């Protein structure tokens, strides 16, 4: 159900994307990225392994003729990886001319988080994953961690 709604191509709504975030679940926590960076969301597909890449780069996929690298957010966070299931999705981002797919456990949906509900993360760096978090958003359902895409990728 969550997957179905997630499969909608979000790109068309680009002009009204302010305060809109795509939220997804990784290892029990909710994460969000600005909808403006999202190119599309696809279900997990076979990934071709490329040698000599860091462990979190899972390989490349064929996205309608384009070759797109995919990274595992779990591996990037240093979390143990789990087998892919029906809910596993690839969130394809268009970030600064890099088209890159993020493998996430499950896409939740699009949430509106106003600026007033966003706060900076605590300054103490307690866990490894902390460095990828840009802000913390509060929504009705709970807390969402907003990802710093640049740090996630590079």
């Amino acid at each position, binding site marked *: 159900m969550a997957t179905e709604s997630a499969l909608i191509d979000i790109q068309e709504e680009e002009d009204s994307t302010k305060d809109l975030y795509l939220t997804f679940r990784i290892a029990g926590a909710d994460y969000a990225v600005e909808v403006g960076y999202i190119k599309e969301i696809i279900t997990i597909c076979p990934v071709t*392994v490329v040698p000599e890449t860091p462990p979190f780069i899972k390989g490349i996929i064929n996205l309608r003729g384009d070759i797109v690298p995919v990274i595992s957010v779990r591996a990037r966070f240093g979390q143990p990886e789990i087998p892919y299931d029906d809910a596993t999705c690839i969130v394809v981002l268009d970030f600064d001319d890099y088209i890159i797919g993020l493998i996430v456990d499950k896409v939740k949906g699009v949430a509106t988080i106003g600026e007033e509900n966003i706060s900076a993360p605590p300054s103490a760096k307690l866990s490894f994953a902390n460095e990828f978090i840009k802000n913390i958003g509060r929504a009705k359902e709970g807390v969402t961690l907003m990802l710093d895409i640049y740090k996630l990728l590079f």
Partner: protein
Amino acid sequence: MSEFDRESMLEMFTFEMNQLLESLEENVLRGESGYSMENINEIFRVMHTIKGSAAMMMFPNISTAAHGIEDLFFYLRERNAPDMDYSRITDLVLESMDFIKGEIAKIESGAPSDGDSAEYVSRIRAYLQSLKERAAAPEPEAAVEAPRGADGDTFAARIIYEDGTEMLNVRAFAAAHNLRQRGMTVSHEPSDLIDEAASDYIAENGLRLIITTDQGVGALRDMLSETIYMKEFTLEPAETPAPKTSAEDPKAAAPEPSEKAAAHPAARPARPAGQQSVISVNVSKLDELLKLMGELVISEAMVTQNPELENLELDSFHKETRQLRKIIKDIQDAVMSMRMVPLATTFFKMHRIVRDMCKQLGKDIRLDVIGDETEVDKNIIEHISDPLMHIIRNSIDHGIETPDARVLGGKPETGVVQLEARNSGSDVLITVRDDGAGLDRAKILKKARSAGLLTKPDEDYADREAFQFIFMPGFSTNDQVTEFSGRGVGMDVVSKNLEKVGGSVLVESAAGEGSTFTLKIPLTLAIIEGMMIKMGGGKYILPIISIKDSFKPRRGDVFRDPSGNEMITVRGEVYNIVRLYEFFGLPTRVTEVEDGIMIMVENGDETVCAFADELVGEQQVVVKSLPKYIKKPRGISGCTLLGNGDISLIIDVAGFFG
């Protein structure tokens, strides 16, 4: 052309200009050691065309610069190429040519052409004047024109243009402008040529000109006959009757054939004769065609290898698909051949660099070019011009010694830089060889050490590795910054540009004997013949061109040397083994040599045996580069899409060596 489409005309104009400038440069450099009549005529013709086109496109600065050179060569031609300072003339022409090149570049990038050519023109004029003065003294012939008086003679001329010529007023304006530039007094009817209504008048009655000149009727006739799109013209003396022209100047009676052609509609100004069978095509159209070709190849594989066809009896289908594949292959060859361009033009540019640098550095260097007919894909050629330039600069500046030092070292005074291109399988090898001092290994390593680039003791670096440091950004062993090098930019451009097209560069050098740079460039980027192999769970493509042989190995032929390197004897020869699953770090079940297959692959003159799980079959593949996010792994040159949509990596055999 009823719609005045300036954009597309400009594009055509800059294209033409660039071609003309290339041919000009070639002629000028050839002429430096002595202009032949043929050179002079060609340069004159080219300059004339540039002048005409530029005037028509309303770039007066370009047209006057061209005009200056044209005047000079007009004089040289009249004088039958007298003995003169060729090098000075070459300097003058190249200087103006660079100016024009710069302006064309501005126009191409959409900027206004605002350079001022007056400086160049006045320099040429001054030189021409000095030539004339020198010639006037001993040669009585030159005096003939003198007694014409300051006012000169007045002539009435009428120019009739080709039927249907567009923008007559503009052309008329250019014609009158040309005459004025030669120092003639010109009045014309209609008097207002800026007004478009003038076109109609000219179409009906022709352009009437009253010209006062002291240059003689011959020169005037010559100039008028050069008018573009002209059908015919009449020229007669106004007021004072003058003797018949043909007796006075034989040239007027028999104008140059090339000028006749200029007035002929079939020969557009820039087209030299004999090129009618060639058309020029926008490169983006060829790129599009190539892209479609790639899709066709993939789509063919998708159809003929469709999983739904498996286990069906389809004899006739398979026969037809073989035919289809053959046709596609033929189309592909044709498409590829269209994109192939000889290296000659790129190589020729290097003559200019060698010449200019020798003059400035006081060195004596000859550039030998071998194999410039070798063809390379158009897209690739664009990326090798800069690297070549930097390497040649480096060779001249750092490599080859001054003539004195060379004599002291027992070498001939003239240094030699040899530029050679040749085919080698699916690559083109371009070597730049100089007989200079060679690279200073100790100095390079010292510099690398102080830059913190070294991780091992000096003596552990092979020469090859050490020399590779010169391609690092900001790396220069030159203590002084010269105009040409020493800033550390340049050589890093070489490796960067080559990487973009999947090429590489190798340096060899011997102290005192010179150095050799070898650029390895793929012939084409697009489609290759591949052998699909299975390894672990994945399928990989090995370019057929690298494969020498494949065979089932026997356990007894495989052995290890004391340091653990695995080798195999094949027909009495010993080869290293590269186990692909180990090399790429992939899990596989096939680890026993008897279960897999050995593929003998070669790169240049080196050969190894690659061990894979099994061979799948031959296939044409469209090469795609890996996304830029992924750092290019060793031994992988790119990837390709298979018929079923899977991605397969393409193995770069060169990665197995060194």
